């Protein structure tokens, strides 16, 4: 079975998606364990694939035995094995997390939710494993369509947000497809390895240049690179919590992977760096994204929205790392794909738990929440610290490489902007953390709680349940779990938090065993 792992990674979630529907018609309750089991199997497979790649190098799998470039080929090297492991792991964790959240937010739609969720996973994994530009387009569309559907079932303005996303996403997909078409016209091939061989002679062809431009813009829309990000904040804010957690942590990362693939595998690094000033342009765009995302995040009153804007800045970090075109920067970018996936998943899951318990993700709702949800809020704090980039959390180590990369490329301005955006992120999070642990406007919770009458006119959001009394006597007397999120939500959050703490410690190991092999030649 292991030699077919490359294709099984796609086939399992795809088939599970269909069977899930059938199972759902029969017994709704069985969907959840079925999905978790399928994705669990996928995680095992993708980790074994990663292991194989680490031990014996690139895997090439020919679909139906057709030899490339005629048949479709799946090529898994260190880079996509790494992304594969991240995506399948996060998909499993988010699936475990989804149970209660989906039951509350999407009552009666759980079966359809899981069906589309599995399709989304299929699409993301497909983009990652394939070694064929057209096949990549197909999976890109599967991803996008599933994404549109999942976002549209969210609350409030979700359908409108999803519609905006459809328009932008379709333009992106069109551009990408145009790029594929142009390359096919001049080379007659769709296989990435084959294209890499054929293209260098045609680098001066206008068609190839146009194709490259279409590729870049198309992918930039998909990863919400500033200024093509406008669809993202709305979509990720109004999507169901589970969906936000999954798409925020993986979709942009897979898009970034596709961008790296196109820039450095389909085209040679010298094309993206020297022949066209693509990396220089991307660098400035990324710098703008870092600044813009953080500043916008400062102005938000909704937690999920603030996180969405931070995500735009994080995409900027990754692209900036790629654009400086040196070993440290690229290492940082790939490492940040991993770290940011964990941080985003953690924070969006926390936001989801808050929505689950309080009904909305308004930052006001977090006020004094550490008394009721001490563990969730602790996880939030650790995620936030990592986002700011304070050691020993994971976020620091990818920033370390990213900034070293910027300095090595003599881009001092980027390094400074980077730190300033970290600073802005710190402000965003510490304002929230202060709100959580030391809520303003609330009088001192001293041993004698205020009389009821005075509590009433303290203002604030009417949806907040009255503060717990007895806080002055110490945290120990309240049942720690009595107001916490359910275990199916809390355990995934813990896993992500532990990941954030541990990944940092092991970043050296991750770099030496995987990431150093992903760096394109010539860096």
């Amino acid at each position, binding site marked *: 079975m292991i030699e077919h792992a490359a294709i099984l990674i796609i086939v399992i979630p795809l088939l599970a998606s269909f069977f899930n529907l059938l199972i759902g018609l029969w017994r709704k309750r069985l969907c959840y364990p079925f999905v978790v089991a399928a994705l669990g199997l996928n995680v095992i497979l993708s980790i074994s694939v990663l292991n194989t790649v680490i031990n014996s190098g690139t895997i090439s799998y020919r679909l139906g035995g057709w030899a490339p470039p005629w048949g479709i080929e799946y090529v898994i090297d260190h880079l996509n094995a790494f992304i594969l492991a991240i995506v399948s792991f996060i998909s499993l964790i988010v699936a475990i997390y989804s149970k209660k959240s989906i039951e509350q937010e999407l009552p009666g739609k759980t079966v359809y939710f899981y069906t589309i969720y599995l399709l989304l996973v299929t699409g993301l994994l497909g983009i990652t494993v394939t070694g064929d530009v057209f096949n990549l387009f197909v999976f890109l569309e599967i991803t996008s369509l599933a994404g549109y559907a999942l976002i549209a079932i969210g609350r409030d303005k979700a359908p409108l947000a999803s519609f905006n996303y459809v328009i932008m996403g379709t333009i992106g997909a069109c551009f990408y497809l145009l790029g594929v078409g142009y390359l096919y016209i001049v080379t007659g091939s769709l296989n990435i390895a084959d294209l890499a061989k054929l293209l260098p002679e045609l680098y001066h062809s206008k068609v190839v240049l146009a194709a490259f431009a279409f590729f870049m813009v198309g992918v930039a829309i998909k990863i919400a690179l500033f200024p093509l990000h406008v669809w993202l904040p709305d979509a990720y804010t109004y999507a169901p919590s589970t969906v936000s957690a999954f798409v925020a942590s993986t979709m942009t990362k897979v898009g970034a992977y596709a961008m790296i693939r196109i820039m450095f595998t389909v085209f040679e690094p010298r094309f993206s760096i020297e022949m066209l000033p693509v990396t220089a342009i991307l660098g400035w765009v990324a710098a703008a994204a870092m600044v813009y995302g953080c500043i916008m995040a400062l102005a938000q009153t909704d937690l999920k929205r603030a996180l969405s804007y931070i995500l735009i800045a994080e995409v900027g970090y990754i692209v900036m790392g790629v654009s400086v075109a040196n070993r440290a920067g690229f290492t940082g970018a790939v490492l940040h794909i991993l770290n940011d996936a964990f941080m985003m998943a953690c924070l969006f899951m926390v936001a989801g738990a808050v929505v689950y318990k309080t009904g909305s993700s308004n930052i006001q709702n977090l006020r004094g929440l550490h008394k009721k949800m001490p563990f969730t809020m602790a996880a939030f704090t650790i995620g936030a610290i990592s986002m700011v980039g304070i050691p020993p959390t994971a976020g620091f180590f990818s920033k370390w490489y990213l900034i070293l990369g910027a300095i090595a490329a003599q881009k001092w301005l980027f390094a400074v902007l980077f730190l300033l955006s*970290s600073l802005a992120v710190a402000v965003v999070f510490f304002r929230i953390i202060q709100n959580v642990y030391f809520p*303003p406007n609330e009088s001192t919770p001293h041993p004698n709680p205020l009389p009821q009458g005075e509590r009433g006119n303290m203002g604030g959001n009417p949806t907040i349940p009255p503060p717990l009394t007895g806080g002055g006597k*110490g945290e120990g007397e309240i049942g720690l779990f009595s107001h916490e999120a359910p275990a199916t939500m809390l355990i995934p959050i813990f896993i992500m938090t532990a990941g954030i703490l541990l990944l940092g410690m092991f970043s050296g190991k991750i770099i030496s065993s995987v990431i150093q092999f992903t760096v394109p030649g010539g860096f």
Partner: protein
Amino acid sequence: MEVLISVKPLLAVSVSLIAAFFIALTGERARNLREFWTISASVVKFGIVISMLQPILEGKVIEYTLLSITQGLELKFRVDALGIFFAITASFLWIITSFYSIGYVRSLNEHAQTRYFACFAIALSATMGVAFSANMFTTFLFYEIITLCTYPLVAHKETPEAIKGARRYITYLLGTSIAFQLLAVFMTYSAAGTLEFSNQGILNNVRGQVSDTFLIITFILFMAGITKAAMMPLHSWLPAAMVAPTPVSALLHAVAVVKTGVFVVVKIVLHIFGIDLLSQLGLGTALAYFASITIIVASIIALKQDNLKRRLAYSTISQLSYVILGVALLTPSGITGSIMHIVLHAFGKITLFFVAGAIYVAAHKTNISELDGIGKEMPFTMAAFTLGALSMIGIPPLGGFLSKWYIAIGSIEAQQLPILLVLASSTILNACYFLPIVYAAFFKSEQCQLLVSKETEHQQLPPTLTLTPSLKEAPALMVIPLVLTAIGALVLFFAPSVFLELARMVVAGVIN
């Protein structure tokens, strides 16, 4: 230099971290057990630190690499003379502060005591981490941990004022460390390829490969980024942090946190830049004059503070810059004085803060103008205050004199005679803001009957130590520690040998 590999530095760091875990686990249900963890951790920590003293005095260093994360980023401890010097000071004073803390929070019936003790323990862990760090990465890591875990302590009272103070605290400390210090760390690493402290200074070793402008910018970024040293103009977090409970102000904002700041400054001057490089660039002199401005201006501001703790805070700002001034002179005596001032100021200032807390607990007074005649009610406390104040001013036979003496000699060695003027005027200013308090406490007549009015407001006034009817001292758990630290300030004048020896070893290491 002989290197011992030992796990002891890690133990010294982690013992209070483990204690914090047990403190949180025990919680409010068994207060005495919870306090037992604090006390035993502080004693064990001091024991471990002391057990490392002998090898250090024999000229060895103790190293332990906890984790080599990636190239250039290692979690590594190295105990050298400077590190053990700071560690002894902080861990010894933690024992005393622990007892004092217990007296303080119980007398005032403070809320969230578990959080208080747990954060306190973590802060001490991180302080040890800074003291024993072998490279700038480890220093930065623990520096940030100190900031994060003292934030709840500053916000402890949860009043709007406390929250505002805590916000300013974290904005200054975290903000500057990310914006300036981290950038300086990156610049250092990209220039030198390492962050490991070296006696010659790691940037000195790559002199010639980088421009002077680069070095100057790096130095300025470092100095701006280490806001814990409270150099003007980035000092205003320290007075704001005075909203914290007094034991926090005493140990953390007179010893652990702020001394971490000046300790890191000393490390950067000696081990990242190296005295040769700094004297060639003329940055030492610039830093010395910059520190001088802080010394004078902070003292002047202290003069007009009526709140006792705020006056002490400005005094701390001024005194911290002595440490920076001393090391910035880049001469043997200057560096000795600078290092000695870390411990001598610690004993004096912690006494003064303890006194402020004792007065607050016993008499509920925070302002200096209310202290007339308090010496008759609290003679032990105010006697200790007098000793502490005299040490601050630098009058023999109190510890504070020693460090000023060395710094004065250092300024002559460095041929910076204006510095002498700074020292002289600062001494006068110190006397101006401390002696009136002593005078008022002992010689002015008692004006207000404190207990009659206060007792009605605070139903349960803490149990007081009543030796004779006229004495209204704070509980013994508070008075004994402050008397001990005051005696400590006295003893250090007569027996500074161990500390002086350690300081000489540091100087011998960096000056060849």
